[in-house]
Every structure is written in structure tokens, then in C-alpha cells.
């Protein structure tokens, strides 16, 4: 697996100009509103880590990759580990950034959990169907949720009011930490599902 990690870091470095540009935008946008920077930077890094899958699959590349001494489940595990590492780096970066402006560390944790949940949802599709379909799933989920919330808020305001009042009674630290733990657990389950899904994948 070490070879795969080295490969994915090298592949991501190929996009370093794009990454630096995104970080720049994130910092500028985040001067007033740190949660924008956090959300933006974490999402960008999460999606970039998925782009290594499309590099792998281009030009029948999987045939060569799987002549390396790795199994299908090694490949899947490495993708999850790599995405986690990249998201972790983004999280550290954003936390340091947050020290310079008044911030909610809790907010950062919640956004980290969201990034992990997004990855957990889209990685199985990316691995099964390839990059294009996986990205479509990602967008559908994000926009779908946004519209769903907006819709519910419009027509059933009481739904959100009651959730808000419940959330206000919770201890914010407990809430964000338990959300994070839940998203790690779901991330792990997503990996188990992906391993099973990838077993049936035809390597070409």
C-alpha cells in the first residue's frame, strides 16, 4: 500500500497550482467568514483526492496498477486512507487559519464531519462506476440536500424550529464531537461497502 500512497501524493502534486489557487480563494473569502474558508477548502481537498481515481482508470491504467503486489481491497483501503489524510491536512490548515479570526472550532469539526460524510457517500460510487458517475452522485447529493432543506424550511418551518430547539439544549462540544465520531464510523462502513463492491469490478 505504501507504493499506492506515494503514487497518489505524487499525482496530487501535479495539481499543485490548482490547489494553491483554491487555498488562496479560500483564505480571501475566509477573512470575514471563517466557515466559508473551512467548508470550501475541505470540500475542494476531498474532491481532489477523488481525482486520483480518474488518473488510475485513464488509458487502461488499472491493468498496470494491479500488476503491483496489491489486492483489490488494498486499493480501496488506500483510497480511503489517502482521502482521510488529505482531509486531515486540510483540517489542520483551516484550524491554524481559524486562530487568526474569531472562529468556532465546533463549526470546523462539524464541517469536517460533513466532508467525511460526503466522501463516505461518493467513494463507493466513484470506485464502482468511475469518476464521472461518482462526481454526478456527489453533486446530486449536495444539491438534493440543499433543496430538501430549503423546501422543508419553506413548507414545514416547525420541523426545523423543533430541531433547532433540541440542538440548543445540547452541549455544543458534545454535539460536534459525537457528530465527528459518527461520521468516522460511517466512513469506515462506507469502506467496507466499497471493498465488497470493488470485488466485482472488472479491471480494464
Amino acid at each position: 500500500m505504501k507504493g499506492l500512497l506515494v503514487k497518489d501524493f505524487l499525482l496530487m502534486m501535479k495539481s499543485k497550482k490548482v490547489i494553491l489557487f483554491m487555498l488562496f480563494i479560500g483564505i480571501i473569502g475566509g477573512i470575514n467568514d471563517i466557515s466559508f474558508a473551512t467548508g470550501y477548502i475541505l470540500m475542494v481537498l476531498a474532491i481532489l483526492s477523488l481525482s486520483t481515481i480518474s488518473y488510475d482508470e485513464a488509458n487502461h491504467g488499472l491493468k498496470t496498477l494491479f500488476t503491483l503486489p496489491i489486492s483489490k481491497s488494498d486499493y480501496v483501503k488506500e483510497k480511503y486512507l489517502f482521502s482521510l489524510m488529505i482531509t486531515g491536512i486540510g483540517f489542520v490548515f483551516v484550524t491554524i487559519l481559524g486562530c487568526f479570526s474569531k472562529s468556532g472550532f465546533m463549526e470546523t469539526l462539524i464541517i469536517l464531519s460533513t466532508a467525511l460524510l460526503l466522501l463516505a457517500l461518493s467513494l463507493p460510487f466513484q470506485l464502482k462506476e468511475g469518476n464521472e458517475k461518482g462526481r454526478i452522485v456527489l453533486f446530486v447529493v449536495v444539491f438534493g440536500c440543499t433543496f430538501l432543506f430549503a423546501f422543508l424550511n419553506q413548507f414545514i418551518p416547525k420541523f426545523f424550529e423543533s430541531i433547532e430547539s433540541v440542538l440548543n439544549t445540547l452541549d455544543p462540544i458534545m454535539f460536534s464531537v459525537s457528530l465527528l465520531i459518527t461520521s468516522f464510523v460511517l466512513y469506515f462502513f462506507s469502506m467496507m461497502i466499497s471493498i465488497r463492491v470493488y470485488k466485482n469490478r472488472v479491471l480494464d
Partner: protein
Amino acid sequence: MRFVKTYNDFKLDCKLELKPGTITALIGCNGSGKTTLFKLYLGLIEDDDKHTNQVNKEEIGVVWNDSSFSLVLNVLEIKKILMYSYKHFDCDYFDFMLSRFELDPKKPLKEYSTGMLSKLKIIIATSLHAKTLLLDEPTSGLDVIARNEVLDLLRDYMEQNEETSILISSHIASDLEGLCDEFYFIEKGKIILCEQDLESYALLKGADETVDLSYALKKIGMTYLTNERQFYVENYPNLVIEKAHIDDLMEYMIKGETV
């Protein structure tokens, strides 16, 4: 080893043995099942019994003709990946081969020519000092000079690693005649011929009724393929007897009428 795999319109069913210290040729047209056989051997696909072949990939070097590492990477980066992937990757041999073939380690692969890329893939496979090498059409798309360099590379490798088994698949048969010890001919998923000594095969031209054709295998028009060259040389001095090359064998075994 037995390979069985059924697709919608194609069935592969053949037996093939790779022997140590032997270069084996797998010769067949496009679509005859060569790549499927490779994939089955490596455990990349499962066979009809839902069984995946378990091989130790640390000890196998593979060259595909349509696949390589990601083209945005350069050779130095690929070398790092290989060093971390294989326990027995030979960096010194790799570097020596790169400079021998004048391959630029800093250029990304997408800027390599077809010939350079093929040479690189073989250098990667041989740097593993693997016990088995599988080469899927390693010389396709190469000019004459590059082809000879590649074949020389393989000969040198066999001399230095005597216990290795090499399986080369190709439809350019002329490369393989001087190189290989054993020949498998594959057509539509079946092995139609397996021979070690091709010297005894010949084409008989201008055979009339006086010629004993019991040793003729196939015919196209009035030319016959036989595997008993010596018999005809000794008994019919006036008969035109030509050496049968691999291309001839393919043609006659596939398209010839059985005698």
C-alpha cells in the same frame, strides 16, 4: 495450467505450461484470447468457476501493450512508486538500463514515443528480477531498430536469470522465431498447436499423385503443410519443400483444409 473463461460471444478454454528457463510464445490473431489468458493468469479476472488465480505478484513482471503507469508521471516518480511497492526492486539495474537506452527520467510519460514507452515498460518488468515475465505484444508499434533492442534486452535478461519463465504473446511472429523455445498457437480461445521444434514443419509445393500425403496436416490450394519435413526431403528430391515460418503455420492451421 488450465484457463477457462466464457464471455457472451467468446470462450477461452486452453492449457498452457510455463517452464523455468524457457521463453514461450503465444501466437494468435487479435481477439484470439491472448490478453484474456494473461488476465486470468494474473488473477485480474475470475474464471468460469468463479475462481481467481492466486499468484505472488512480487515475482511477476508484466508488460501490457495498451496500459502503463499514469501518463502524467515521469520516470523518477514511477521509480519511487516501484521502490515502495516491491521488496526486490533493483534500482541500480533500473538506472543503468535507463541510461543505456537514453530514456529521460524527468520527462512525463505522455511525452515519450511509443518505442521509448515500450522499452521503459520492459525495463520496469526486468528490474524486478522476477521469476516470471508476461509480455503482451511487447513489440507492437515499434520500428525495426527498437524491436531488435527490445528482443536483445530479453535475451540478455534470460542469460542473467536462467530460471525465469517468459511468456510472450504476439501476432508479429517473425520476432519470436529466433527467440522462443516453445510455441503455442491460439485461435478463437483454443490452442490449435503446441510445438517446441518448428524445424520439422515445411510447406510442400507442386505435389502430384505420386506423393504420399499421409504426413500432410493441412492444405491451401495445392500447397500442403507437413510436420515431417525430413520424410519428404529424403523421399521426394524433386518436390519443392519450403521451411514453414510461424506466419505460415498460423495461416495453414487456421484457414487450411484438413487433409
